[in-house]
């Protein structure tokens, strides 16, 4: 059954040009943003100014092994909105052209259709994570003067954290697409909420944390998984206490993210099952 779902989803995207164009943009944007950050740091650190020298001395090289996995994951995570376009497009297309309905008419059960999309989101996560791993490793080898196996993969667990964060955020994007069914509206809400509303709410909850007794902003849909990848140590050094707290909370947020993602998919299965197509 899984093989059939996988094959059918593959048939849907195999010749879909927009899908491959957007994946290519993702593939370009990841090395692009990290390379820009890397060269900006390199120019500053190797420049003649005293500030640059001081920065190098204080921060080390955030792109060298093993820090590259953390730094690259942090920078790449800002670009989750590009694969989110792919996910929203894949689900809203099915509604726009009523092909999801035809899938059911032709013999799929409603839950089979959602499983198909679950597999697609997993695969997109896997592909994007591979892009990230390639970029992190490449920059690591470029930036590290002496590569020693012992430290090479010390922070490699960020690969899993990156994959979990991405899968969670793409799942939220999928749910939005499933609920709203119109690509532009779903994507608009995703961007507007993700970049503006949620950041405002996070700030607001932080301000009211004392009054409320807890910073509930941690539990907002994107913030839950954003906290899987705290700021890299190069930046964290400026506020070591907060950095340590953020690093210590990763384990908790793995649990919260898994719960949220599970809930999102349960909701997706339920909504689609109950909905008239």
């Amino acid at each position, binding site marked *: 059954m899984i093989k059939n779902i996988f094959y059918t989803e593959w048939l*849907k995207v195999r010749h879909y040009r927009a899908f491959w164009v957007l994946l290519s943009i993702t593939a370009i944007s990841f090395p692009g943003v990290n390379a820009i950050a890397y060269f900006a740091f390199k120019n500053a650190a190797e420049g003649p100014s005293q500030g640059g020298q001081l920065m190098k001395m204080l921060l080390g090289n955030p792109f060298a092994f093993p820090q590259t996995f953390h730094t690259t994951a942090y920078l790449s995570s800002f670009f989750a909105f590009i694969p989110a376009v792919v996910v929203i497009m894949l689900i809203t297309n099915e509604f726009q052209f009523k*092909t999801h309905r035809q899938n059911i*008419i032709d*013999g*799929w059960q409603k839950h089979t259709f959602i499983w198909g999309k679950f597999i697609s989101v997993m695969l997109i996560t896997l592909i994007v994570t591979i892009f990230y791993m390639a970029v992190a490793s490449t920059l690591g080898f470029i930036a590290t003067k002496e590569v020693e196996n012992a430290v090479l993969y010390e922070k490699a667990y960020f690969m899993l954290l990156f994959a979990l964060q991405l899968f969670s955020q793409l799942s939220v994007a999928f749910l939005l697409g499933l609920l709203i069914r119109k690509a532009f509206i779903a994507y608009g809400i995703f961007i507007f909420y993700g970049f503006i509303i949620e950041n405002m709410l996070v700030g607001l909850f932080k301000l009211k944390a004392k009054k409320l007794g807890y910073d509930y902003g941690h539990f907002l849909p994107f913030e839950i998984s954003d906290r899987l990848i705290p700021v890299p140590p190069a930046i964290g050094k400026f506020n070591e206490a907060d950095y340590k707290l953020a690093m210590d909370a990763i384990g908790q947020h793995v649990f919260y993210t898994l719960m949220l993602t599970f809930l999102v998919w349960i909701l997706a299965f339920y909504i689609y099952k109950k909905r008239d197509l």
Partner: protein
Amino acid sequence: MFILEINNISKAYGKIKALDNLSFNVPEGSVFGILGPNGSGKTTTLSIILDVLQADSGSYKWFGESPHAGLRKRIGSLLETPNLYHYLTAVQNLRITQSISGRGDDRDIEKVLKQVNLHERKNYRFSTYSLGMKQRLAIAAALLGDPKVLLLDEPTNGLDPVGIAEIRELIKSLAQSGHTIIMASHLLDEVEKVCDYVAILKQGKLIASGSVDSVLSDEDCLILSAAENRLIELMQGYKGISRVADTPEGVACFFDKGKVSAAEVNAFCFNNGIVLSQITMKKKKLEEKFFELTSTQND
């Protein structure tokens, strides 16, 4: 044996009752037409039996079994509009149908594309097709793997006259080779030409069902006029008459087709003391019968 049994299905959209206790059975090997004006509940009925919509109450059975996804794979279906991937070609779209339904193989894809005259455009994207071509491709998808039951919602929608004739011929030839075809249409002419059974819906209610000949049978109608007022009363007692109506044209007397002679009616009236000033034989059109059925049930 019935291929499809529908029992007391109801469905409402808010306050609007789309289907109201609908029941009918589709015999195996028949071409079964679901006929009704726009908004009568035809597509809602088909959507429910294809598990796209959920009925509020009632049940249905395919092949004598309670519905499940495996049964849908045995039915070639075209519901409402052609729902295919706009960025894929005809062949690529049919491969998806094949993968989901498990019906047919690559040779079947070639075969059905030839059947609907799309073979030459098989490698063109769906988005480049005209409405008629899209409809043909959707029919090809329904035909894939030669399912024994076909469910076609307005199958000639968007086709030109030649295309309409071809699809009707195709349906007839499939029926002759033992397929069961369930076809929804608002075109009376189409149902009359293609179907052997019909269910007529209006505002979600079944108003007539049975063989096309019995439901949409043509009637003979005699229009009579006379000075005497008791003409209606007299004609109600005439042997073989089905009903009498007072119309602006005169007294309309309905008989089963070929069962009345104007001379005999004239003689009957004369012998009973009524001299007819008018006796006109009027052939009733099928459309009139349909309008009569649907308007009668409305009152």
